[in-house]
C-alpha cells in the first residue's frame, strides 16, 4: 500500500517553508527576502552535460 499522509498530519500548506534551491539563484534570493530559510545548491550538469550518461547514472541510482 502506498504511504499516505494520515489526517491530522500537517501538509505542506500548514508548514513554514524550508527550501533547498537547485538552479536559478534568484529564486533562492526571492525566498530569503520573504524570510524563508534557503540553502542553494551549486548545481552543475551531471557527467559534463551528457544526457545519455546522466540517464545511465540515474538508472544505476547514482
Amino acid at each position, binding site marked *: 500500500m*502506498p*504511504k*499516505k*499522509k494520515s489526517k491530522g498530519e500537517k*501538509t*505542506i*500548506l*500548514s*508548514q*513554514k*517553508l*524550508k*527550501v*533547498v*534551491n*537547485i*538552479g*536559478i*539563484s*534568484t*529564486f*533562492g534570493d*526571492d*525566498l530569503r527576502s*520573504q524570510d*524563508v*530559510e534557503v*540553502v*542553494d*545548491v*551549486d*548545481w*552543475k*550538469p*551531471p557527467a*559534463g*552535460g551528457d*544526457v545519455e550518461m*546522466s*540517464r545511465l547514472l*540515474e538508472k544505476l541510482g547514482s
Partner: protein
Amino acid sequence: MTSKVIVKKATYRDSISLMKISNTIAKLPGITQAAVVMGTELNRRVLSEAGFADAAIGRAAGDDMVVAIEAKDATSLEAALKEVESLLSPGERPAGEKAPPASLGDALDLLPDANLVVISVPGQFAKREAMQALARGLNVFLFSSNVSREEEFELKRRAKDKGLLMMGPDCGTSIINHTVLGFGNVVREGSIGLVSASGTGLQEVTTLIHRAGLGISQAIGTGGGDLSEQVGGITMIQGIELLEADEKTRVIVLISKPPAPNTMGKVLGAARRCTKPVLVNFLGGDVSPRMLGGLRPANTLEDAAREACELAGGKRRVPTALTEAAVSVALEENKKLAKGQEYVRGLFAGGTLCYESQSILQPLVDAVYSNAPITPERKISGEAPSKGHTCIDMGAEEFVEGRAHPMMDFSLRNLRILQEARDTEAAVILLDVELGYGSNADPAGQLAPIVRKAKRLAEDSGRSLPFVASVVGTEGDFQGLARQQKVLSEAGVLVMPSNAQATKLSALVASGTSVEAKIRERSK
C-alpha cells in the same frame, strides 16, 4: 568595429545569471553588443541574427558557454573580455567559509528539516533532481520546462503515493502558506484558494482579487501539463483535496487551459465532491452543465476573479466592462489608422494571457493565428512573420531554450515589437507586463523606449501605431504597480486594468465600430 567570440566547452551558468552578465558587459564603454549565453540552438540563431558570424558559434553545444562581444575598438573589447572572466569566476571565499553544497544530499546536511525543493535546472536534468527530492520525502516546485509527459506522470505518481505535492514541471508560480515561489506577486492573505495549471493565469487572478480588496489563502501551481491525457490532473486533484481540508480556504478557484476530455472528467469529479464552493475557469473551454453540476463556470480570468470575490463576500466589484471613456479613445485610435492597418498583434510574456486573448478575440474577428493556438489549424511558427490577427507566446519553449523567460529578458520581444512596427498591416500592438518576484526589475522601463521607437518607425512611413497593455501586479510588488503603469502611459501605451479588457480594447482599435456591438454585448 571589432568583435570576438569565445566558446567555453562544458561550462554552465543559469540563464538569469548569464543575462545579468550580458547586460553588465553591454553597458561598458565602447561596447556595441554583448551576449554571454549557453550554446543552445535558439541562442546560436539569435547570435547569428545579431551579426556574429564566427564559425565557432555553429560548433558550440548546448552545454558550452558562448561569449560574443562587439566593440568600437580593440581596447574596449579586451577590457570587456576581462570583465566577463572576472564576473564568471566565483571569487575568493573568506577563510573558514565552506564551499556551497554541490548536491541535494549535501544541502540537507545544512538544512535537515527542509520540506520543499525548488528546481530550475535545464529540462533534460530536471527529472533526476526531482526524483531524488521525492525519494527523500520532500515536496517539489519544478520550474523547468522541456520535461516529457511520461516523466511528468512518473514524478507525479511517485509524489502522490508518498503524500507529497509535485508542483510542475513547467510550474511558474505558487503561493504556499503565504510564501511566493517562482514568479508571483505580493497579495493579501485571505480566504480564496486556487489550483492553477497556468502560471500567468494564477498571477492575473490573484492580483485582481487583491486589487478588489480580498485575499488569497493558497495558490497551488500544477504546471501546464497536469491536465493532459497522460498526466490525468494528478496535482490538480491533490490540490483540490488539500484546499478542501485547508481551514483558511472558503472558496476554491480552478484555472487551466481546456483540459483533455478524460482528465476534465476526473478533475470536475474531484471538484464536485468538495463541500466548499468551486469556481471553474477552463479558458474558452466548453464545460457541459451536466459535468459542472453545482460548480460555477467563469469565461475569462477577470470573470474568475470577480466571481471568486463575490463568493467570498467581497463588497467591491471587479469591473469587467470597458468604460465609455476607453471605448471612445479606442474608436478615435481606429479612425487614425491608415488603409491596410487591420490586425491586432499580441506579443505575450504570459502564455495563459496569450491563450486568453485568443479566446476573446476569436469570436470577435475572423481568425487569430498563434505559435500556441487555441485550435491547431491556426498554428504559425513563432519565427515566422505575423499573419492576420496574431498572438505570439514569447514564453513558449521555442523562445526560452537556454534563455531567461521574457518576463525577465525583454530582448526577443522588443525585437519582435520593432518587426511588427514595420508591418503595414499591424493596427495595434497588445502587450502584457508582469510584476512581482522573478520578473524584471523595471519592465515598463524596458518597454517604454521600444514603444517610442516603434511609434516613430510607423510615423515615418505615415502610419500611427497604438499600443495597448495590461500590468499584472500589485502595489506590494517591488516594481510598484502605479509607477509601472505611469511609465507605460507616458510612452503612449493605453494601459488597461486586465488582459481581458486590454484584448477587447485592441479589437476595438483594430476593427472599430464593426466589433463595438459584440464587445458591448459580451461585457454585460
